[in-house]
C-alpha cells in the first residue's frame, strides 16, 4: 500500500489478508467456515508479525513497530502507516540470533530481549519505531537506545518516544495533547502525509468497530461456561494489534460467527504483569482452568472505545490518558478498583496475580486487591515468575496454589 492510498479503503481491506500477491498459502486468507480458519489466521498474525509487515511493505506501505500499549495506534493508521505492536517474548523465538540473559544496560529482561533483537537485525521488517511510556523500563530502554544511536552502535532507524503521562488532571491532559500533536508531526515526516482530522475520524471509527467486536468476544468469556478461553482471547487480541483494522474485523467476525465449543473449568481472572506470550495462559488452562479475563494490555486492557470529539485528537488522547489502567504508572486505588470490578464482572472464582521478577509495580496492589475481593469471597493467589514465564515445576505449583485457594489444601 502506498501512503497516498485512500485511507478508508486502507482501513477496511488492506494488509496481508486482502493482498492478492502474497507469499502465504491462500488458505491463510479465505474466510472459511470452521474454527481452524480464524484460529490459524490469528495464530499466524500473532506468531509472525514480520510476515504481516513484509506483506504490507510489499504493497508499498510502511510499518511502524510499536513497543508498548500506551501509544495511539489510531494516529499511526491515520498517517497511512501500519502499527504493529512488538512483543519481546515473541521476538525471542524469531530466527535471528537473539540473546537473552543478563543486561549490561540493566534493562528489564523484556526490554533487553527487545534491544537484542534490534541490535541483531531481527527487526529489519519495521521502518520506524515508537516506544510508549507504558512503564519506566521503557523509559530506560529509550534512554539507552538513544545513547547507542548517538554512538553509532545501533542500527539507524526512525525513532520516537511517546510520553503519555497518567495523572488524571487538567495539566496532564494538556501536556498529553502537546506530545500527541508532536507525535502526529513525527508520523507525518515518516509517512509524507499529515494525519489530518478526516483521516483520524476514519481511523477512530475503525478502531471503535474493532473494539465492538472485541467486546462481543469478551461477552463469550463472561458466559457460563465460558465461550472462549484465555489463550484464544490473547491470540485474537494480539492479532488485532498486528493486522490492519479491516483484516482484524474480518478475523474477529469469523471468530464470533463460529466460536469454539463452550469451555468448562474453574474461572480464573489473571492480574499483574503484562505477559506477551501464550505460555503462561496455556499452562493455566492446560491444568483445567479457564481464564475469563485479565487486566493487562495484551488482553482485555488493550481495547477501549475512543470517545467521539469535535477534534478527534481530544478523544484519542482521553482514551489513552484515562483508559483502563495498567499496573505500571497508575494509582493503587484506581488499579485495584478496576481489577476488582473486571474480575467480578467476569464471574471469576479466583484471581491469579502473576508478577514478573523485574516488574516494580503490581505487587504493591496485592493487599488492596486481596481485601477488596475477600469481601466478595474471591481469593487472590499471587506468584512471582521470571520473564517470560516460569519453568514447568513452578507452573505446576501455580496450578496447585489455585486449587488450594479454591478448595483448601485437601481439595
Amino acid at each position, binding site marked *: 500500500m502506498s501512503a497516498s492510498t485512500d485511507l478508508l479503503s486502507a482501513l477496511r481491506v488492506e494488509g496481508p489478508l486482502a493482498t492478492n500477491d502474497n507469499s502465504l498459502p491462500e488458505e491463510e486468507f479465505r474466510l472459511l467456515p470452521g474454527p481452524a480458519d480464524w484460529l490459524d489466521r490469528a495464530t499466524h498474525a500473532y506468531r509472525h508479525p514480520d510476515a504481516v509487515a513484509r506483506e504490507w511493505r510489499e504493497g508499498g506501505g510502511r510499518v511502524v513497530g510499536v513497543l508498548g500499549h500506551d501509544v495511539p495506534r489510531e494516529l499511526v493508521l491515520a498517517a497511512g502507516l501500519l502499527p504493529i505492536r512488538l512483543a519481546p517474548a515473541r521476538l525471542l523465538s524469531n530466527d535471528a540470533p537473539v540473546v537473552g540473559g543478563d543486561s549490561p544496560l540493566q534493562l528489564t529482561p523484556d526490554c533487553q530481549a527487545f534491544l537484542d533483537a534490534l541490535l541483531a537485525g531481527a527487526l529489519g521488517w519495521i521502518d520506524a519505531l515508537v516506544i510508549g511510556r507504558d512503564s519506566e523500563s521503557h523509559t530506560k530502554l529509550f534512554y539507552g537506545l538513544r545513547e547507542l544511536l548517538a554512538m553509532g552502535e545501533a542500527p539507524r532507524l526512525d525513532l520516537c518516544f511517546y*510520553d503519555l503521562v497518567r495523572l488524571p*488532571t487538567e495539566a496532564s491532559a494538556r501536556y498529553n495533547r502537546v506530545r500527541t500533536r508532536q507525535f502526529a508531526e513525527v508520523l507525518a515526516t515518516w509517512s509524507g502525509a499529515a494525519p489530518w482530522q478526516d483521516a483520524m475520524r476514519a481511523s477512530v471509527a475503525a478502531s471503535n468497530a474493532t473494539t465492538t467486536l472485541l467486546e462481543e468476544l469478551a461477552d463469550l468469556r463472561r458466559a457460563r461456561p465460558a465461550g472462549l478461553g484465555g489463550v484464544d482471547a490473547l491470540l485474537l487480541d494480539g492479532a488485532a494489534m498486528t493486522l490492519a483494522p479491516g483484516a482484524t474485523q474480518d478475523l474477529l467476525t469469523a471468530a464470533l460467527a463460529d466460536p469454539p465449543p463452550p469451555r468448562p473449568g474453574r474461572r480464573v481472572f489473571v492480574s499483574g504483569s503484562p505477559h506477551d506470550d501464550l505460555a503462561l495462559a496455556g499452562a493455566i488452562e492446560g491444568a483445567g482452568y479457564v481464564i475469563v479475563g485479565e487486566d493487562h494490555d495484551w488482553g482485555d486492557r488493550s481495547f477501549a472505545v475512543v470517545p467521539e470529539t469535535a477534534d478527534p485528537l481530544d478523544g484519542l488522547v482521553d482514551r489513552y490518558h484515562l483508559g483502563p489502567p495498567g499496573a505500571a504508572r497508575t494509582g*493503587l486505588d484506581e488499579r485495584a478498583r478496576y481489577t476488582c470490578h473486571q474480575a467480578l464482572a467476569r464471574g471469576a472464582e479466583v484471581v491469579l496475580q502473576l508478577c514478573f521478577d523485574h516488574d516494580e*509495580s503490581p*505487587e504493591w496492589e*496485592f493487599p488492596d486487591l*486481596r481485601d477488596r475481593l475477600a469481601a466478595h469471597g474471591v481469593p487472590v493467589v499471587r506468584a512471582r515468575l521470571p520473564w517470560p514465564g516460569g519453568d514447568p515445576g513452578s507452573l505446576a505449583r501455580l496450578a496447585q496454589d489455585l486449587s488450594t485457594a479454591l478448595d483448601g489444601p485437601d481439595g
Partner: protein
Amino acid sequence: MAEGSAFTRRSELAITGEIVAHQREWLAEVRDQVAGGEPFALLSADAPHEIYRAFDIPYVVVQWWSSVIAARQRAPQCLAALRAAGYPDDREQYSALGLGELLLDDPSGTPWGGLPVPTILSAPTTSDGIRKLFEAWSTHTGAAFYPIEHAVDPRLDLPRDWWERLPHHWDECLGPERLDLMADELRGLIGVLAATTGRSFSEARFAEVMALANEHAEWNRKTRDLIAATVPVPVSAAETMTAAMIPQWHRGSEWGRDTARRFYDEVAARRDASQSVCPSERVRLMWLGRALWSSLGFYRQFEEAHGAVFVWSMYLGVAADAYLRYPDGRDPLRTLAARFVPMGEEIRMPSWSAPWHLKEAQLHQVDGVVSFGEDDYFSTRLLEAAGIPVLSVRATNVDRRTWDEASLGALLVEFIEEQVRPRAERLRA
C-alpha cells in the same frame, strides 16, 4: 550516622555533629508542633520542597528517613514488616523503609524518637511503584497524597553539559513542554496546600526561599570545588555525605544556607592548615551510588593500609551542580519547575549522568570509581575510555541481604591494589 555497624565513622568535621544534633532537635520540635495540630509532610527527595518551605509546612524526606533507619540497623525489620503486610520487600526499598517502620509499630526501637504522623505525602511519578507505595502509606496514615506528574524528555539530541547550562539557561536547555507541565503542577499544589492547611502562599516569601536555595547551592559548589582541587583531600566523602545531605533538606532556609557556608569554612580551614583525612593519600576514589548509611565507617577502612580515600559522592556533587536555577527576571515558579523537571535525570539518565560522572571524576582527580547499585553502563564506558577503572557492584544500599562489609571490602581491596593503584602510581610518577 552509622549506629551499631561494624565500622564506626570517625568524625572529621565539627559541623557534621552540629548538623546531626540540630536535625534531632528540629525533629523533636516538629513532633511537638504536629501534636499541637500543625501540618506535617513526608516528601520524596525529588518533590518541590521549596513550596512547603514557603508555606512554612515542616517536612521530612523519606529517603533521608530511610538512611536513619538503615543507620540504626533497623532496615531488616522494616522490610519484614512490609512483607508481612503483603507488600513487596525488594521494591522501592530506599523509599519504603518508613512505611515498613510504620507497619512494624514498635515505638521502642524507632530512631530519633520517631516520625510524627504525616498529614501530607507527596512524590513525583518517577518510577512504576512510587505512586502505589505512597498511596499505601496514605491508606495507613490517613494523610493526603499529592502525586506530582513527571514527564520524560523525548528529544533525540540533548545538550550534555547540563551543569553549565541549567543555572541560567534552563528554559533553552529543558524545552517548554515539561516546564509548562511542572509549572502547572506547582500551581495546583499551591492551591491544594492553601486550601487544606488554611495557610497563605506569599510570592515574596517564595522569592526569598528561592534566593536562599541558590545561595545554599553556591556554597556547596565552592565546597565541592575546593575538595576537588585539594590533594591530599581535606575531608572524605563519608563525611560530606552527611554534611551535605541533611542541610539539603533545609534548602531555602537561612539555617540551610548558613550551614552550607560553615561547612565550606571548615573545609577551607582544613585546607589552609594542610589538614587531610588521609595524609598518605595515594589513591582517590569516587563512590557512584547511594550511600551505605548503615556503615559509613566502611568508606574509611582503605585509607591507612592502602592510601585510598573516597573523595566524591553524589550527595555533594548533586548539591553543587543540580540545584542552581536563577530566575534572571523570569517567573520564580517556572524557575522552580526548572529545578524539578530534570531532577534525577542528572544522575540516572545516561545522556546526562555519564558525561557528568566523567566531568566530576576528572575534576576530583579520581583514580578509580566504585559504582554501587547504579545503572552505570554508559558511565562505566565513558570513565574507562578516559582511563579510569570502574568496579561495578550490583546491590541495594539499604538491603543487607544484597551485600556485606567483608565481601565488599575484599572486592574493593582487590580493585584498589590491582587496578587503581598501579594507574595512580603511573600517572604520578
